[in-house]
């Protein structure tokens, strides 16, 4: 199957905010990083994918099935991890299993316990006494134990120390060893996405700005840094966004090697996801 998730012209209208014709895909076997400012529409999009709220337009297919008509069937195959653990604080890990095994037909107790051991999650502690990292790992173990094909992660590594984050990223990379598995990973920690994402989808003000391969963004995109008087040298067709401040200008280009050949006397740097986001949000288009 080509795409784990296909989103077409998704719309949602609120009083102060709108999701406008959001379209993007999560190809099977890939990790798609979902980025955007707070309030840009990431969580709304995810809630709509999970049919937690009604959409106002467009359609969503998961594993080729309609996400509303085949909701039950689809959800058996999705694991979701949010930034908070929503399990009751008085529960122990075993209690979580007792509940979830009645919900998922494919719940695998042996696998769940194996993961708890691997992640060093204690059997006898109640969840409200867990560290943040432990809570997250419990959420992940619970999301994996019914053998889903798709993981949807909403800020699943926020607030975690770099060591634990790395362990968790490894868990996700492990999950994707099966090429029928896919991950949609919404995160502010662009560093994590730079490490493991295959594609990056960027949402801004309720609209998708781009969906590109991460390699293209990190290796092909570049930033021309120059003074204001050198601006006139630049071909405006090369520039995606430009930001001017007191000390100079920064122009985002899609092909830094071509730019280096075209403007050999200008400084052209490689860029990062953070910088690309910043230029899209704070920079302007060249007219």
């Amino acid at each position, binding site marked *: 199957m080509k795409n784990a998730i296909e989103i077409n012209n998704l719309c949602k209208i609120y009083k102060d905010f709108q999701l406008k014709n959001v379209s993007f895909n999560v190809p099977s076997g890939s990790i798609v990083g979902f980025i955007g400012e707070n309030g840009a529409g990431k969580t709304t999009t995810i809630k709509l994918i999970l049919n937690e709220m009604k959409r106002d337009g467009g359609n969503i297919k998961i594993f080729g099935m309609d996400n509303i008509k085949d909701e039950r069937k689809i959800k058996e195959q999705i694991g979701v991890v949010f930034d908070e653990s929503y399990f009751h604080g008085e529960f122990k890990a075993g209690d979580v299993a007792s509940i979830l095994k009645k919900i998922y037909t494919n719940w695998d107790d042996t696998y769940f316990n194996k993961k708890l051991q691997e992640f060093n999650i204690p059997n006898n502690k109640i969840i409200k006494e867990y560290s943040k990292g432990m809570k997250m790992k419990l959420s992940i173990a619970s999301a994996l134990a019914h053998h889903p094909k798709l993981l949807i992660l909403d800020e699943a590594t926020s607030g975690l120390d770099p060591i634990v984050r790395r362990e968790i990223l490894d868990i996700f*990379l492990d999950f*994707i060893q099966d090429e029928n598995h896919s991950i949609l990973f919404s995160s502010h920690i662009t560093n994590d996405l730079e490490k493991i994402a295959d594609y990056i989808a960027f949402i801004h003000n309720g609209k998708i700005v781009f969906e590109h391969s991460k390699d293209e963004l990190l290796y092909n995109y570049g930033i021309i840094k120059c003074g204001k008087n050198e601006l006139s040298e630049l071909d405006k067709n090369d520039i995606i966004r430009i930001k001017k401040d007191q000390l100079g200008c920064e122009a985002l280009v899609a092909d830094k090697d071509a730019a280096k050949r075209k403007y050999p006397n200008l400084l052209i740097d490689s860029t990062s996801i953070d910088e690309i986001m910043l230029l899209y949000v704070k920079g302007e288009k060249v007219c």
Partner: protein
Amino acid sequence: MDIIISNSSKKPIYEQITDQIKNHIIVGNLNEGDVLPSMRLLAKELHISVITTKRAYEDLECEGFIETVAGKGSYVSRKNMNLIREEQLKKAESFLESAVDTAKSGGITLNELIEMLNLIYNGE
């Protein structure tokens, strides 16, 4: 098989992987028929995207160093000995060009150079 990736190198990661695997094959760490780690496993071990490892393997396949069989994996190609020889010939030629340039600028004669080459080649 060791693969060492630099994040600060200007060379794209897929190119670093391609170069290193080529090197392993040329030096003999990897031999004809040896199976390479799967693209996904390599991606996981190196903490990079599968698209990157896929690109590296595709480039290696294009240059004839490896073959990928769908469902089975990638292995070092049987047809690549001539290619390797070609590549080594080119490299040796360019090193010799450097040696000649250096010799000429230092007033070293061709005979002296040949003598030097003999000594070095025969393990003096």
